[in-house]
C-alpha cells in the first residue's frame, strides 16, 4: 500500500497531516514520506520518535492529551474520563474510537484544566464537561458539532502597560521607516537597550548587529513562538491580538539585517491560531506590507509559519533551527552561534515574540519612549503570565522593577507559600523573597509567574517539574539524558516516603552535576526546582524522609510482594 500525501513543504507538516488522517505514522508512511522529501528514512523515523505528537502505533479517532501542568492540568479529570470511557491512559481503545494521554503545559494556565483533542485546544474543563465529552465521544460526534465555547480561548489581559495599551495600526511602524537608513534604525533598537524577552536577555540591538555584520548573502529572521515554559502564555495573547505588530517586528528586523525570509515557529499546542495567523499574513501581503519592495522602500520580506509537534526543547534557538530544517530538535554546538551560522548555516536572528513586538513599537515611537520605563538595567516593560492560586489569573504588563508582592496583590493571591518565577527552569522563591523585583538584575523571567498557596504540597509541585524535564530532555548529552531521569527517580523515592538523608544527599550531588555539565540550557536549569527547594524549603524534604541516617533504605516487603503473590496464586 502506498500512501498518497498532499504536497506539503515541511516534514513536520506532512507528518502532522498524516497523523491526523491515519491516526499514526506507519513504517510504510515513513518510507513514503522519506521518498517524497528525498531524505533518508531514518530521518523521518527520528523525527517521528522525537516529537511527542507523532505516534508509531494507532491513536483513537478522538485523541485527547490532558495537560499535566500545575496550572493548566488536572489529571483527576483525565482519570474520570478514562473511567467513563473504559480505557487506560496511554492506550487506544480496542474499537479505535478513543485514546487518552498526558502532555506538558499547553499554555492555557489562565483557563484552568485544559487538553488538546485532535490537536485543538479545549479549555476550562470541569467535571460536568467531562460527562459531556464522554457522551459526545461515545456517540462519535464530530468536533465541529461540539459546544464551540469549549474551544473559545480568551486573552485575559488584566493590566496593560507600554505595549498592550498602545493601539497599533498595521503598517505604521513600517511607514515610519521611510527615508531612514538601516544603521539609523539599528541605532534606535540599540539605544532602546531592549533585551530579549525569551529568557536569556541578550541585547537585541547587538544580536541584530552581529547578524548584519556576519558575511553572507542570505540571512534569516526567526520568531520564536514555541512558548513551552510551563506557566507561560503571554506570547499566546500577542499572537492572538497583536500578530501584526509581531510580523512588523520581523519585517523591520529583516530590513535592518538584510534578510528577505522570516519564519514563525509556532508551538504545536497553538495550532488553533494557525488559520488566523495565515490570514493576517495574507492580508499583509495584499496590502503591500509583505512581499516585494515593501511600501516602496526597496526591500523584500516574507514569512512562513512552521508548526512544532510537542517538544519543549525546540524553544532553545539552535534546536528550533534544527527543527525548522526538518530534524529532531537537538541543540547545536555553540559556538558558532545562530547570528553567524543559523538556519541552513546562514546568519540568523532568533527572537522571542514579545521582543519583536517591542522592537516594532520602538521603531514607531523612538527609543526614548521605551527607555523612560523600567530600571537602569532593564528598560521597558514585561508581560507576565500569572497563574496558579490567585483570584485573577491572566496577563499583567508592568514596567520592569515591580515587586513580586505587588504582582501577588494585583492578582489577588492570598496565603502564598511560594512563587515560581520564570517557570520550572527559573527560580522558586518563598515569602522572604517577595520584596524582590522583576528585572534582569534581580529576578529575571521569561514571563511565567506561578503562584502556590499554603494548601499546596510543594514537593508534589517540584516533582511535577522534575518529571517535566526528564520527559523533555532531548537525550543528546549524558548529564541531562541520564541525570534528569536520576533526579526524577530520586525525588519520587523521597516523595513516596522511602528516602533517607543519604538519598537527599545524592539528589543534591546529581543536581549540581546536571546543572554545571549539561550541553544546553535545558539541562543547566532542569535541577533548579530541586536545588531551590533544597535551599529555600529544606524542611519539606526532611519531613518526608524515613530516617536521618546516611544509609540506604530497602523496602523488603515491597520487594517480596510479587513472589508472595505468585506463591499464593499457585
Amino acid at each position: 500500500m502506498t500512501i498518497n500525501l498532499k504536497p506539503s513543504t515541511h516534514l513536520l507538516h506532512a507528518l502532522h497531516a498524516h497523523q491526523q488522517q491515519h491516526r499514526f505514522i506507519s513504517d510504510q508512511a515513513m518510507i513514503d514520506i522519506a521518498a517524497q522529501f528525498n531524505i533518508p528514512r531514518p530521518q523521518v523515523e527520528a523525527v517521528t520518535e522525537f516529537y511527542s505528537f507523532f505516534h508509531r502505533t494507532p491513536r483513537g479517532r478522538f485523541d485527547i492529551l490532558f495537560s499535566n501542568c500545575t496550572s493548566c492540568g488536572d489529571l483527576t479529570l483525565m482519570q474520570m474520563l478514562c473511567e467513563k470511557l473504559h480505557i487506560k491512559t496511554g492506550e487506544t481503545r480496542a474499537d479505535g474510537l478513543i485514546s487518552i494521554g498526558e502532555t506538558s503545559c499547553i499554555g492555557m494556565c489562565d483557563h484552568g484544566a485544559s487538553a488538546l483533542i485532535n490537536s485543538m485546544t479545549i479549555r476550562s474543563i470541569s467535571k460536568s464537561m467531562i460527562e459531556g465529552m464522554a457522551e459526545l465521544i461515545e456517540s462519535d460526534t464530530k468536533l465541529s458539532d461540539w459546544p464551540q465555547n469549549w474551544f473559545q480561548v480568551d486573552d485575559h489581559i488584566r493590566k496593560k502597560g507600554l505595549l498592550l495599551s498602545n493601539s497599533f495600526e498595521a503598517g505604521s511602524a513600517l511607514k515610519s521607516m521611510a527615508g531612514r537608513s538601516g544603521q539609523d534604525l539599528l541605532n534606535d533598537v540599540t539605544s532602546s537597550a531592549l533585551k530579549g524577552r525569551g529568557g536569556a536577555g541578550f541585547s537585541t540591538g547587538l544580536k541584530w548587529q552581529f547578524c548584519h555584520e556576519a558575511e553572507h548573502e542570505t540571512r534569516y529572521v526567526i520568531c520564536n513562538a514555541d512558548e513551552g515554559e510551563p506557566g507561560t502564555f503571554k506570547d499566546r495573547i500577542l499572537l492572538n491580538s497583536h500578530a501584526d505588530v509581531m510580523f512588523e517586528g520581523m519585517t523591520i528586523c529583516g530590513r535592518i539585517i538584510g534578510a528577505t525570509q522570516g519564519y514563525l515557529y509556532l508551538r504545536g499546542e497553538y495550532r488553533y491560531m494557525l488559520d488566523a495567523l495565515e490570514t493576517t499574513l495574507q492580508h499583509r501581503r495584499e496590502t503591500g506590507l509583505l512581499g516585494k519592495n515593501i511600501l516602496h522602500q526597496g526591500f523584500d520580506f516574507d514569512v512562513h509559519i512552521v508548526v512544532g509537534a510537542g517538544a519543549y526543547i525546540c524553544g532553545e534557538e539552535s534546536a528550533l533551527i534544527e527543527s525548522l530544517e526538518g530534524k529532531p530538535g537537538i541543540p547545536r554546538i555553540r559556538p558558532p552561534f545562530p547570528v553567524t551560522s543559523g538556519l541552513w548555516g546562514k546568519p540568523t536572528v532568533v527572537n522571542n515574540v514579545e521582543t519583536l513586538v517591542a522592537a516594532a513599537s520602538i521603531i514607531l515611537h523612538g527609543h526614548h519612549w521605551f527607555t523612560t520605563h523600567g530600571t537602569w538595567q532593564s528598560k521597558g516593560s514585561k508581560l507576565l503570565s500569572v497563574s496558579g492560586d490567585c483570584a485573577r489569573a491572566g496577563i499583567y504588563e508592568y514596567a520592569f522593577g515591580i515587586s513580586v508582592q505587588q504582582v501577588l496583590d494585583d492578582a489577588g493571591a492570598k496565603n502564598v507559600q511560594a512563587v515560581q518565577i520564570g517557570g520550572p527552569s527559573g527560580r522558586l522563591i518563598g515569602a522572604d523573597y517577595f520584596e524582590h523585583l522583576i528585572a534582569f538584575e534581580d529576578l529575571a523571567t521569561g514571563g511565567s509567574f506561578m503562584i502556590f498557596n499554603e494548601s499546596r504540597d510543594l514537593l508534589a509541585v517540584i516533582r511535577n517539574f522534575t518529571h517535566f524535564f526528564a520527559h523533555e530532555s532531548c537525550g543528546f548529552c549524558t548529564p541531562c539524558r541520564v541525570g534528569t531521569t536520576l533526579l526524577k527517580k530520586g525525588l519520587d523515592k523521597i516523595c513516596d516516603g522511602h528516602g533517607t538523608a543519604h538519598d537527599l544527599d545524592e539528589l543534591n550531588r546529581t543536581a549540581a552535576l546536571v546543572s554545571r555539565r549539561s550541553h544546553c540550557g535545558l539541562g543547566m536549569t532542569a535541577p533548579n526546582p530541586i536545588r531551590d527547594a533544597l535551599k529555600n524549603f529544606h524542611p519539606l524534604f526532611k519531613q518526608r524522609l524515613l530516617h536521618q541516617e546516611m544509609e540506604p533504605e530497602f523496602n523488603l516487603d515491597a520487594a517480596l510482594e510479587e513472589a508472595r503473590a505468585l506463591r499464593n496464586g499457585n
Partner: protein
Amino acid sequence: MPKLRVGTTSLGGCFGCHMSFLDMDERIVDLVQHIEFTRSPINDIKHCEPCDIGLIEGALCNADNVHVLKEFRENCKIIIAVGACAINGGVPAMRNHFSLQECLEEAFLDEIGLDNPQIPSDKELPLLLSKVHPIHEVVKVDYYLPGCPPSADAFVKILTDLLEGKEPSLPKEMLHYD
C-alpha cells in the same frame, strides 16, 4: 596485636570470589597469622558474630540474602563488596530485564523436558525479590573489590592494607571488572 576477625559469605553468587580468595595459595598461611575467620563457608560457621571485616560475595536475590547481609552489616565494622555480583548485580541481575513471573515460568514451566512442571512453592524456600540488587542498595558499603572474580592479589592487597591500618586501595593495574 589481636587478630583481625573476618567473616565472609556468598549471597546470590557462584562462589567464584571465594575460590579466587583461596587462590592466594601459600600466602594464606601468612594471612591467618593475622586474621581469624568467623562465619564463612570456608569453616561452615552459620552465623555472623561481631567482627572487623565482612567480605560479601554475590547479589541480593532473595529474602534470605537480605537477612544475611543485614546481619553482617550489624556485626562488621567494615563491609567490603566483593566481585561484580555484589557490586552491580552481575550475572544474577540479568533476570532484571524480565518480571519474576516470566523468569519462573521460563525455568519451571516452559523449559523443554520438564517432568511435572510446576513453580516451586515449598515454604522452606526463601522468597525471591522481584528484582536482583547489588548490596550497596540495601546497606552501607565501606569498600569495593571489583573483578569477576577479583584476583587473589587484589584480596591480599586489600587485606594487607587493612591490617596495616591503611585506607585500602587497588593500584590501577589491579583494577578489573572482568
